[in-house]
């Protein structure tokens, strides 16, 4: 049986109350965001960036993995093509995240939608998707959570750039590097609707690993997400006919 598309009864919204709910929901995952932000600040100084440049990058780009990748390409002459390709490849997963929020954006004015998307990130997206399953219909959830993450990320980058001393090994000692993956894993538990998700998710996992092994770095989220989505769609078509 195909999953019923649930039309939202009240339409989409973007309210302060939604922002507040999102901000509260994201509190627990702020510590690793903070730690990675500090680590970025330290790494940036290590690669010769001035502190304010590192802070500016965190404030404007607000995408940790691609910021770390840029540090490795921080050389003269600037390797423009690898830099731009890496930035796109690492962040291309946002396209899928944004697409999946369609129902939550329906009916909102464009400036609200595109304004909210400035804060779109894996963590607040996952929190919103999980909340949507429990009836959340407010895009503010994404904005509130994202704003808090942004504040944490920028503050931590500044602290790291100024202070220093911590290394990624320290983070590993306390297993803080695994907070994000466990957060995503628990989100997945809440998201599972039942057997209907088994095949798409299996395909997604296999495709993601295949991409890790056979594609250039950083395409695995895009490859796995698309493969899983298509697998679910194809399976529905075949069971229907």
């Amino acid at each position, binding site marked *: 049986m195909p999953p019923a598309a649930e039309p939202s009864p009240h339409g989409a919204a973007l309210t302060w109350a939604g922002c507040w709910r999102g901000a509260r929901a994201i509190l627990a995952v702020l510590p690793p965001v903070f730690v990675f932000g500090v680590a970025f600040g330290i790494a940036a100084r290590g690669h010769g960036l001035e502190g304010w440049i590192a802070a500016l990058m965190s404030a404007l780009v607000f995408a940790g993995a691609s910021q770390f990748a840029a540090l490795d390409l921080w050389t003269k002459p600037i390797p423009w093509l690898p830099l731009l390709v890496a930035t796109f490849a690492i962040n291309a997963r946002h396209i899928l995240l944004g*697409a999946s929020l369609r129902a939550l954006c329906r009916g909102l004015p464009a400036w609200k939608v595109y304004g909210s998307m400035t804060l779109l990130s894996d963590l607040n997206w996952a929190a919103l998707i999980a909340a949507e399953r429990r009836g959340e219909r407010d895009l503010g959830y994404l904005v509130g959570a994202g704003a808090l993450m942004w504040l944490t990320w920028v503050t931590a980058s500044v602290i790291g750039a100024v202070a220093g001393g911590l290394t990624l090994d320290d983070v590993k000692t306390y297993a803080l590097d695994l907070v994000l993956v466990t957060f995503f894993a628990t989100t997945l538990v809440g998201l599972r609707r039942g057997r209907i998700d088994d095949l798409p998710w299996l395909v997604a996992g296999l495709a993601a690993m295949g991409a890790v092994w056979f594609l250039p770095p950083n395409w695995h989220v895009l490859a796995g997400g698309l493969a899983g989505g298509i697998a679910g769609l194809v399976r529905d078509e075949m069971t229907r006919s």
Partner: protein
Amino acid sequence: MSTVDALLIIFAMTLITYATRAGGIFLVGFVPMSARVEAFLRYLAGSVLVAIVVPATVRGGAAAYVAVAVAVVGTLVLRKALPAIALGILAAALWRAYMG
């Protein structure tokens, strides 16, 4: 690396990253809404998460398997994500301290 170069890089990265953030909702606007598209987007959400979790777990090695397994079982048993994550992290830290 001059300051101008650095600012240029940050500016370019900002543009590209925002394009990916806005691109999803922009592109999906061209697709006519149907039950099929809705279903696809729902499969997509879960699949993206799987595609984040699985490679990250494999790359993380034994400690990551421990953390994810404990967190998932913890979520199923406790019905609450946060204590489950804490348990998973604790288990992984212990694993690294004594087994790793």
